[in-house]
């Protein structure tokens, strides 16, 4: 019976874990520039800082000392102990190995707003849900072990400008994550007793996968300033606006027109998307839709995505 449930959770990871996100695909294929790597490292650090806070919130939901004793190890893994360095320190070593100032990265001063939103959404999710759903949301770690193993290899192969000692974080997680994930999975399988519980767990895991994708979207798109090409002209017609470019005319609906108007070269893509996110605060995929639209406009030669 639980076999089917576990398969369902693993299926969600196969389909939605961020291993297929274009940025991760490019990272592992060695296609990222040093600037892109650095931007990712300093932004992803914000996520690292949210992990112990999220785990602290999970601890407060449990009445079971055995559970808490097990789970608190995750906080030690990230924050470190007197005896050993934690994940946060290891990540800052990675930042240094990419040529960035440790204190500047730790200050979180340059974290892009889309990244901040995604990470805060994760903490808020855990705060707003019960223990079972919160633990279920952490099951992305089932994938993290092998994925970070690949990542360490990809970095060694493609980004030899990063000193190998910077990769200690990835190596440490290849053993920690599977252990954590097995415990998390055992907990979820034992406590999801109804089909309604199972559905909530599946939904929580899916949401977490989306958040990881949104984080990467924030890294990618927060660094781009979409600019309507100067030779584009807009005509107003009874059926709506028409965007006119060499050899092509594109009918725009009112939202599309509004987005293009925001593509002034001053705002970054995140700020363009924010125009819409503010109006649809409960719709987490709006930013993604805006990015897809901007990509489509880039293909049509209507928008340039400047770095």
């Amino acid at each position, binding site marked *: 019976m639980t076999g089917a449930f576990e398969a369902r959770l693993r299926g969600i990871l196969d389909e939605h874990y961020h291993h297929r996100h274009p940025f991760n695909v490019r990272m592992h294929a060695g296609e990222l520039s040093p600037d892109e790597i650095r931007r990712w490292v300093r932004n992803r650090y914000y996520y690292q800082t949210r992990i112990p806070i999220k785990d602290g919130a999970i601890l407060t939901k449990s009445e079971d000392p055995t559970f808490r004793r097990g789970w608190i190890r995750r906080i030690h893994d990230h924050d470190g102990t007197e005896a050993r360095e934690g994940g946060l320190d290891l990540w800052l070593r990675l930042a240094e190995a990419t040529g960035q100032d440790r204190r500047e990265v730790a200050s979180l001063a340059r974290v892009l707003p889309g990244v901040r939103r995604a990470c805060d959404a994760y903490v808020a999710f855990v705060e707003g849900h019960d223990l079972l759903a919160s633990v279920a949301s952490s099951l992305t770690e089932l994938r993290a072990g092998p994925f970070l193993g690949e990542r360490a290899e990809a970095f060694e192969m493609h980004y030899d400008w990063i000193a190998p000692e910077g990769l200690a974080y990835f190596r440490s997680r290849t053993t920690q994550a599977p252990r954590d994930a097995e415990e998390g999975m055992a907990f979820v399988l034992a406590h999801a007793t109804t089909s309604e519980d199972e559905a909530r767990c599946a939904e929580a895991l899916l949401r977490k996968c989306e958040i990881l994708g949104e984080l990467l979207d924030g890294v990618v798109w927060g660094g781009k300033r979409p600019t309507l*090409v*100067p*030779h584009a*002209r807009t*005509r107003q017609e009874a*059926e709506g606006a*028409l*965007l*006119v*470019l*060499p*050899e092509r*005319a*594109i*009918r*725009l*609906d009112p*939202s*599309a027109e509004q*987005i293009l108007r925001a593509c002034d070269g001053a705002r970054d893509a995140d700020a363009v998307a924010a125009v819409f996110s503010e109006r649809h605060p409960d719709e987490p995929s709006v930013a993604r*839709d*805006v990015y897809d*639209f901007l990509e*489509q*406009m*880039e*293909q*049509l*030669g209507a928008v340039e995505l400047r770095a």
Partner: protein
Amino acid sequence: MSAGAPSPSVRLLNLVAELTHRCPLQCPYCSNPLALAPRRDELDTATWTRIFREAADLGAVHLGLTGGEPSVRDDLPELVASARDADLYTHLVTAARPLDPAGLARLRTAGLDSVQISIQDAEAGPSDEIAGTESFAAKCALARATRELGLPLTLNVVLHRRNLGRVGELIELARELDADRIELANTQYLGWALRNRDALLPTRAAIERAAEVVREARRHGPRPEILFVLPDYFRGRPKPCTGGWGRRHAIVAPDGRVLPCHGASALPDLEFWSVRDHSLADCWERSPGIDAYRGEAWMREPCRSCPSRGDDFGGCRCQAFALLGDAARTDPACELSPDHAVVRAAREEDPAAATSLVYRSTSAGRG
């Protein structure tokens, strides 16, 4: 948010103004009709200005200024300005002779929106050989001037057996010249090109290699946009010629006749009205020649009941006439056509038997 195609289904969106048939080039695949209009028959500035206004009133968005070579006309800056006044998006299609960078700057000031430059190959030798005249260096200089003026640039290359293997170099040249777009247009075997078909038609293997080069180049990002469509001879399905006869697209020939496409004047027994005698709206909406193949009523089987008829519109009328002598038959490039064998036979011709090229020459072009 969504972005789609303009509606409704019959609307003149794109007007092509063939300002002249005069041209300094002599390309052996020239798509202009075999019978060219002499200079004395060309429309004057005032008539073109009226046409631009009427086109805008019909809902036209784009205006292609072409020829022949449009820059042989001394009134080109005035024509650009009047098109701009009519709120048309102007697109100059030029072979970069006699137009030079200073002339282009004047057109920019007059309100020109975009530029397309034709090149014949990726380097001077073979490009000039196909053009029949020394022009490659001038084209590259004009391309650079286009981008320096902040105008969007399209490079257009007609592909055939002799340059198909250099698609990669052509895309590289487009990058180097900072083109926004490169159109890799396989030769349409009509008019002059049909005379030279045996010498121009490539092999399927060469086309597939070129398609692979294009796929690879597209992976390097969205610029330049690369247009490459498999030629209809090899695709088994006809091209949706001009987006459907009399649907989106009209051409005003140098003598004032309004045509649904470039080659339509070669079709016999069709009466196309001229803007000398009628308004553009009348020529577009009511002339018997455009009406003849507009919509689906003219279609026979297999087109009439074909589920693709709304996508390919039965293919190219001019090709049906050129190869079969009957413009109302299904385009023989379609594998569903009972006449498809004529295209298959041409496609399977032994390339070793290729003959030499017959160059086009227009004495008027040196005017």
